[in-house]
């Protein structure tokens, strides 16, 4: 791909989309973590979350799901911290989805395929934990 005005415009447009997704993801994540940290200052301390040591226990995701099923007003600091981490880890994934949409718009089928391949591998990575 050589440098042309059209290519530069496509790159700038893609960079703007990626930039927006990252800013939104970072802001939401930092907000949730910030709330969790503030809450932890006045909350009754409890033992650090037990970290599973047995492989293939799948306890991590199940515990997180149980936490989020409660009303947000009842969430503890840990719940907000979990939410912040999930939003943070989800941001690059949403970034790939955003670029996929832009490549579809441009009908750049090579990079549509590349983006889909990355998303498929991410999905395999997620379900490999179960």
């Amino acid at each position: 791909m050589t440098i042309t005005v059209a290519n530069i415009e496509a790159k700038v447009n893609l960079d703007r989309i990626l930039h927006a997704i990252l800013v939104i993801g970072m802001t939401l994540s930092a907000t949730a973590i910030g709330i969790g940290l503030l809450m932890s200052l006045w909350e009754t301390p409890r033992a650090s979350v037990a970290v599973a040591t047995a492989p293939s226990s799948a306890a991590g995701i199940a515990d997180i799901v149980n936490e989020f099923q409660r009303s947000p007003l009842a969430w503890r600091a840990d719940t907000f911290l979990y939410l912040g981490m999930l939003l943070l880890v989800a941001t690059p994934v949403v970034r790939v989805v955003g670029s996929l949409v832009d490549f579809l718009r441009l009908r750049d089928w090579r990079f549509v395929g590349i983006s889909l391949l990355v998303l498929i591998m991410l999905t395999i990575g997620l379900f490999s934990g179960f």
Partner: protein
Amino acid sequence: MLVMLLVGIGVGVFGAMMGIGGGILLIPVMTGFLGIPIRSAAGISIVCVVATSCGASVSYLHKGLTHSRLGMTLETATVAGALLGGITAMWLNPRLIALILGCVMLYAFYSMYRISGSDAGQPTGLMDAEYTDPASGKKIAYGVRRLWPGLGLSFIAGNISGLLGIGGGIIKTPVMNLVMGVPLRAAIATSNFMMGITAATGALVFLAHGHIDPQKAAPTALGILLGARLGVRISSRLKSRRLKQMFQLLLLVFAIQMFIQAIRGIK
């Protein structure tokens, strides 16, 4: 939590400046000084690598330094490698993990002598791109060379990332600069961009197994988000030679620490 926040800020600054996730610094600090078991430290680190990537990429994308298409192409290899590394990490001996990390740090120490710090580039007809150098104000045009060797080495970088809970940028940056002909600043920016999705793959595996403690990971990640933005600003002004020397010293110190932990054993 305050200690983790401050550690995160420091790691975020350095990580953003050098195109690495900071995990290669974070893990020795957590295991050596804070007494966190290495398997937990790897999980915390991989989340923090995502934070470094997001925090730094926001600024690098804004400056036009990131080669997003090259990054996405190399991501296919790094994500595949990370997938393999993240799964095998559940079964490897922690001392072996420490030994591997020490070897990776020594390799990084050596490779930094080879990075010229030059920002010269040449269009090749393959994924040509251009950016305005923030230090000199010059427009730099460049292209990509040796894509297939770059993909192979990116796979290895991804595997090490998933295995050790680091971003792999410590390998990706010199690979792009030395092997693929990408100017150093663009290599740093693109490496930061790539490591987010590579680390997210490993983080999802760690998260699914309950190996990430939010009380330690979350404040560290927040510190890194803040530090990474500052790191990009500093890197635009700092002479890369001086920074490289400081970082080489840090790598050597931590490599020795990792070898000591591998020999003595880790809790």
